């Protein structure tokens, strides 16, 4: 009698699982942190990814977005993903570097000459980065290119020697970078991004490197009103999830989720491109001076930067990745010359 009851219970449970509607099944909940401000294009794009993922999976994947740095800095978010408080984070290449050092090649100054060149090289490097990021317990689900980083300073800078007059704000928590700057004879002040404007106002720093959109929206250019015209490095970012949560998502959904994230990334990149144009227009109208170095000065910039890069290769930047990057650049330039 007792056994019979157990069987009934088991049968009922089996039926329950077989016919339990997908919508009522426990969803995979993914909490994603981002330092991008609420209602910024990055935040809106992320919300659209969240919406698309919920829709593709019929509610089996539920995404919550925590914008504006409420989940902490990029470093905090990486730690929280590792702890399981967050399951994903939107990172810039500075954050990506904390997961996988080789991402530093994307930050190297004056390495890429144009959007097209960068795009060509990046497409080739992406699978390598993704594999390495995965080895570190993360899954890259989206890459975005959010414009370029430029030098802004309180006075005119045309040559590498001009920059030596200024105190440069650099990212905190990166002793390797700090060392390289110092070895080249520059004065640097490691700071949190949030302290940069206050640093400029107080005189603690007198030069910063920033994406143009941020220089305009954060009004940095009002104090550091000179910009070096050549692009320093591309601003690449990405959405990473913990590999553990990614693997909990039913496999059948994964390709569609990646495709949806990529579609939003492409739309976002276009939006940021337009925003960058708008930022330049607004900054120029409000007194930004753009300083174009001579060919000779530009050659000096490349020389100084390649010396700095060489000191990092092998020690900070994996030599194989750097070599591959240079090979892809050469390949692109050779193709362009034809």
């Amino acid at each position: 009698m007792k056994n019979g009851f157990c069987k009934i219970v088991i049968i009922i449970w089996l039926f329950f699982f077989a016919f339990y509607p997908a919508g009522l099944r426990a969803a995979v909940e993914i909490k994603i942190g981002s330092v991008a401000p609420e209602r910024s294009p990055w935040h809106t794009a992320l919300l659209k990814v969240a919406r698309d993922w919920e829709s593709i999976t019929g509610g089996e994947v539920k995404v919550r977005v925590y914008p504006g740095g409420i989940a902490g800095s990029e470093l905090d978010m990486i730690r929280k993903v590792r702890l399981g408080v967050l399951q994903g984070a939107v990172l810039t290449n500075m954050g990506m570097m904390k997961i996988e050092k080789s991402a530093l090649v994307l930050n190297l100054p004056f390495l890429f000459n144009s959007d097209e060149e960068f795009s060509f090289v990046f497409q080739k490097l992406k699978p390598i980065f993704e594999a390495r990021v995965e080895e570190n317990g993360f899954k890259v689900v989206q890459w975005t290119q959010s414009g370029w980083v430029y030098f802004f300073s309180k006075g005119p800078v045309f040559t590498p020697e001009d920059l030596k007059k200024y105190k440069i704000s650099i990212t905190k928590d990166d002793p390797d970078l700090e060392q390289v700057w110092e070895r080249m004879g520059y004065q640097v002040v490691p700071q949190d991004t949030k302290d940069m404007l206050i640093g400029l106002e107080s005189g603690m720093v007198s030069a910063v490197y920033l994406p143009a959109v941020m220089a305009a929206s954060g009004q940095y250019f009002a104090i550091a009103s000179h910009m070096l015209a050549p692009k320093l490095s591309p601003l690449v970012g990405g959405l990473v999830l913990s590999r553990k949560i990614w693997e909990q998502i039913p496999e059948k959904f994964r390709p569609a989720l990646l495709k949806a994230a990529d579609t939003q990334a492409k739309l976002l990149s276009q939006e940021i491109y337009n925003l960058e144009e708008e930022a330049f227009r607004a900054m120029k109208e409000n007194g930004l001076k753009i300083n174009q170095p001579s060919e000779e000065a530009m050659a000096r910039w490349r020389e100084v930067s390649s010396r700095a890069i060489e000191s990092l290769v092998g020690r900070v930047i994996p030599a194989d990745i750097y070599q591959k990057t240079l090979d892809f650049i050469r390949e692109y330039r050779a193709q362009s010359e034809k």
Partner: protein
Amino acid sequence: MIKSWQLGRERNNLSTRISILTIVVSFFLTVLLNFSCSLEKVALKKAASMLTSTTSGNVFTSDDDPELIAQALPFAIKFYESLLSTLPEHRGLRLRTGSLYIMYANAFIQTPAEMTPLSEIETRQTMLARAKKLYLRGRDILLVELEKKNPELRKQLRARQWQKALSSFNQEDVDFLYWAAAGWVAAYSIDPFDMSIGLSLPEAAALMNRVLELQPDYSEGAVHNFYILYYGSLPESLGGDDSKALEHFKKAEALCAGSDTSYLLSLATAVSVKNQNRQEFINLLKKVLDFDLNQAPQNRLVNILNKRKAAWLLEHADDFFLPSEEIKDIPGSVEEKK
């Protein structure tokens, strides 16, 4: 021939008489029209003054049916605006029209937009864009009045000549200064990457600073409520400062604790969320829900709307707060529990 001459003369006489008659009639018509025009203007002025009196405003703010007001306001605003086009010098009408645009955009477009589900993100974006447009429309209507007193206002504000731009304004201009600044900053909050609004943010802040100088207890602490949101929401690099937000919270509390719950919502959404202080968030929102509406019948509408928003925020608290690290700091706990 004679006949034709006579006929011609008679025709001439007739045409002369007609001309004289036309002049006389025109003269009388003009007098009559002018008289009726000035009569109409007198009547319109009378009506406008009646419509913009405090009592008429209370008809909206003391109502207990937000849906009724949401439907009635667009017509009322357009009615005020059409009256304003006839009486552009009427200060009360201009203030009512401009401020109603801003109030309507806030209460009936932006707030519902924020509560729109993620699945309807495009609708949310459209509503927010509309709110921004109406905020700026309201602001511009109000700035016209301020520019009558200082025609160089916008130019001086752009040049950051605060003293020069604002010293001519006094007590009688406080309403205009307040609402213009509120609409300006609200538009920025919706689209922080609109470069033209972002770069003019200090101008909006300067208008509100003038209100604070002239009348710190303006509208039962409304100016302090503004500063809770202003200092609480802005990034530190742009002047955000939690201690200042809290200072204004205390001042608002002293001025409006018994009549308006907005300051509680402001601290909860701007500061508690940012600092991930869930308990403070809950306590503040519970106070909004517990508020007795009969305590301040003149603010019934805003307090009802605040209660609705507080209930929604409490229901969606998990969208704003991360779980505490202590709980999640157990390897694999988050994902494995799913």
